[in-house]
């Protein structure tokens, strides 16, 4: 059977507003929710939507991201008729093929998509926390006989100027696009999710390239070009939980929200599971001195201290008389004894020595970087 749909997950961005947390790793590989990395949501959505051909476009600091995704086996994508493929910039006779923007990243991977020869291409971002059935969006795309469908969600009017907003007519056809407008005409924000008819998109990308007009970015160049040519562009409204964890505060917030047992994301829903690269580690050990309330703990953890309203990712150690509140602790962090951590994000493999205090505020979340050591004996002086 012919491949109907290929998904391209754009995972090459740096996410510079995450500061220390994206210094060594790409944003889609940033840990989330105890057992996941951000890209798991897009990958699991693909798997659950029945899309088994997935290109993961990586560029910035790709080591951890690439090894996390592998061949997609953890998401069930290593099938005889589908696979996850890491797509990285490469050099060729035409020069180096680094990706200059979202659309350019797809242009550089035309060969990959053509090899699959799909009818439709779903463009996704690897940066967002949400559950969405792309199949439903594809059905809508076909019903509207669209050449491009853009996933949108209504945002509060006061926030609309932070997004690319879509102005639609009564039939949900997009008639105007404004990128981060001062005076938004609509509150339908683009989620960075697009479904294109591949043949048409390819023609745009190739023709414009030939005329030395590069369509670098979907928002800035491709959508305006489609609008100019009066293509059938439709908005597909999504009304679930969707979060761009682009800043330290939003990453912290999203993790704190995730703790709520009634969270809209419903992480325990067996019908739409979020898969990940699962570490093979020991059970979680909560000792006699442990006190754990309103928290999520993951396998491999050893807890001898007190944990309140926090997430401990896998293989975290918390020593005696330590107190962790309103914090997100990434995998393999070691927290010593008599440590106090509040409103903080502790990076993977960080080591917080005995007696250290790390206290943030809601506006300024404290961050300890990956493998960073805090407190204890220092020989720097």
């Amino acid at each position: 059977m012919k491949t109907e749909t290929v998904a391209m997950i754009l995972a090459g961005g740096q996410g510079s507003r995450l500061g220390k947390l994206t210094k060594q790793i790409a944003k889609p590989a940033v840990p989330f929710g105890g057992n996941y990395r951000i890209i798991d949501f897009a990958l699991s959505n693909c798997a659950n939507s029945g899309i088994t051909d997935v290109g993961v476009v990586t560029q910035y600091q790709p080591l951890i991201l690439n090894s996390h995704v592998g061949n997609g086996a953890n998401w069930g994508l290593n099938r005889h008729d589908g696979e996850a493929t890491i797509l990285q910039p490469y050099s060729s006779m035409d020069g180096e093929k680094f990706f200059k923007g979202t659309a350019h990243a797809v242009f550089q991977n035309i060969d990959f998509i053509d090899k699959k020869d799909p009818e439709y291409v779903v463009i996704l971002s690897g940066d967002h926390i949400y559950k969405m059935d792309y199949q439903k969006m594809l059905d809508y795309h076909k019903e509207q006989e669209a050449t491009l469908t853009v996933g949108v969600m209504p945002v509060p009017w006061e926030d609309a100027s932070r997004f690319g907003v879509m102005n639609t007519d009564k039939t949900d056809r997009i008639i105007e696009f404004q990128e981060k407008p001062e005076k938004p005409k609509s509150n339908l924000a683009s989620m960075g999710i697009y479904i294109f008819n591949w043949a048409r998109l390819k023609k745009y990308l190739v023709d414009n390239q030939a005329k030395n007009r590069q369509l670098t970015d979907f928002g800035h160049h491709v959508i305006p070009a489609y609008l100019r040519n009066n293509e059938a562009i439709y908005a597909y409204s999504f009304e679930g939980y969707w979060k761009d964890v682009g800043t330290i505060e939003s990453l912290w917030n999203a993790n704190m929200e995730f703790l709520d047992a009634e969270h809209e994301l419903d992480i325990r829903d067996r019908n739409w599971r979020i898969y990940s690269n699962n570490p093979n580690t020991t059970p979680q050990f909560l000792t006699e001195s442990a006190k754990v309330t309103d928290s999520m703990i993951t396998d491999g953890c050893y807890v001898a201290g007190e944990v309140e309203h926090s997430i401990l990712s896998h293989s975290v150690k918390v020593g005696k008389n330590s107190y962790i509140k309103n914090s997100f602790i990434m995998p393999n962090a070691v927290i010593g004894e008599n440590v106090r951590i509040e409103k903080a994000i502790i990076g993977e493999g960080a080591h917080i020595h005995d007696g250290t205090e790390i206290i943030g505020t809601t506006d300024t979340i404290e961050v300890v970087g990956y493998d960073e050591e805090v407190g204890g004996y220092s020989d720097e002086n």
Partner: protein
Amino acid sequence: MRIKIAPILNLVENSEKLKPLTNRRPVASLPFGCRYRLIDFPFSSLTGIEASSAALFIAGSGHSLYDHIRSGATWGLESSVGGGVFTHSHINLKAELADTELYTGNYYDDHYHFVSRSNADYVLLMGSSMLSNIQLDSLVRFHEKKESDATVIYKKIKRKDVRKDSTHTSLIMSENDSERIAGLHSLDELTDEEEAVLLNMEMMILDKETFLNHLYSARQQQKDVTVKNLIQFSLDADKTVFGYEYTGYLKVIEDINSYYQANMDMLNEDNFNALFYRANPVLTKPKNSAPTYYGKKSEINNVQFANDCEIYGKVQNSIIFRKVNIAEGAEVNNSIIMQDSYVEEDAYLNYVILDKHVYVKKGARLEGTPENPIVVAKDSIIYAEGEIEKGE
């Protein structure tokens, strides 16, 4: 270090005294330590020597075992260039069929083909009821250094550490060389509780040729291919048989009590670290899961949990497997609760083993003793009035 070895796992193990937990599963599939099954331990030992294949001999259907092992990829037993898990099921040991003409299986042939077709230098025999974490590379080095024909793993224990009527054996060492094995004792003949014995852990390495010769003897004498018999064949043939001492954590899983105790042992950090962190990392079938959520009023004291649980009540000194829900007001002490079980509000459990998918209704109470924990079979429902609707 990759060692050319042909591992044979004899999983036809005595499971009578572990019922009802073994009603529908072999000993090798017994859930252990929140997220493991006993087979994970010998398999994880095999990863230490990068074994690429293993032969399993099991009785009965072994559905739970197949489901757990799948292709064996978790333990490196699946590759496109050879190796793999070779399963021989519905095996009946010759001993069970003594004096009958029923036996038509390929018991000896299966052993012969697996070993003779492998490119191994050595044959390794293991089971799953000796819960331990063995570093096989050290065993092989010892075997080679001693230029031994056969080497058997043992551990020094007290006689009382195993059942009075234990079917296991202990080693008798040679008077001239304390590392050389001269014979075997049946443990049920030894009655002094405090006596130190060298427990035959029923794990053994032999040179391929030696094994094949013994296999021929076993066929001639219509005997089972067990470590006990192979030791005897070796001694009869004047081969050198050495004992290799294991000093890590060991529990012989031979009845409900030892099974319960082994789980409870893990709540002691020394035991836990000895089994999980001193030798090979213990690998099990990977499962996708969410972190475990502990509610605002949960009270936890010395407990191990797997992922995917929701805990709102009070839990002490217990081992909790995946997808267990313990409601607010419920209390669980000194218990083992397997996957998919649900404990409703105000239920009280003390010294209890719940097999998978047991439902404890609101206000129900079950209390066993440390020596006799109450075992509730898979899929049972426990009502507040004390009535138990039995599952399998």
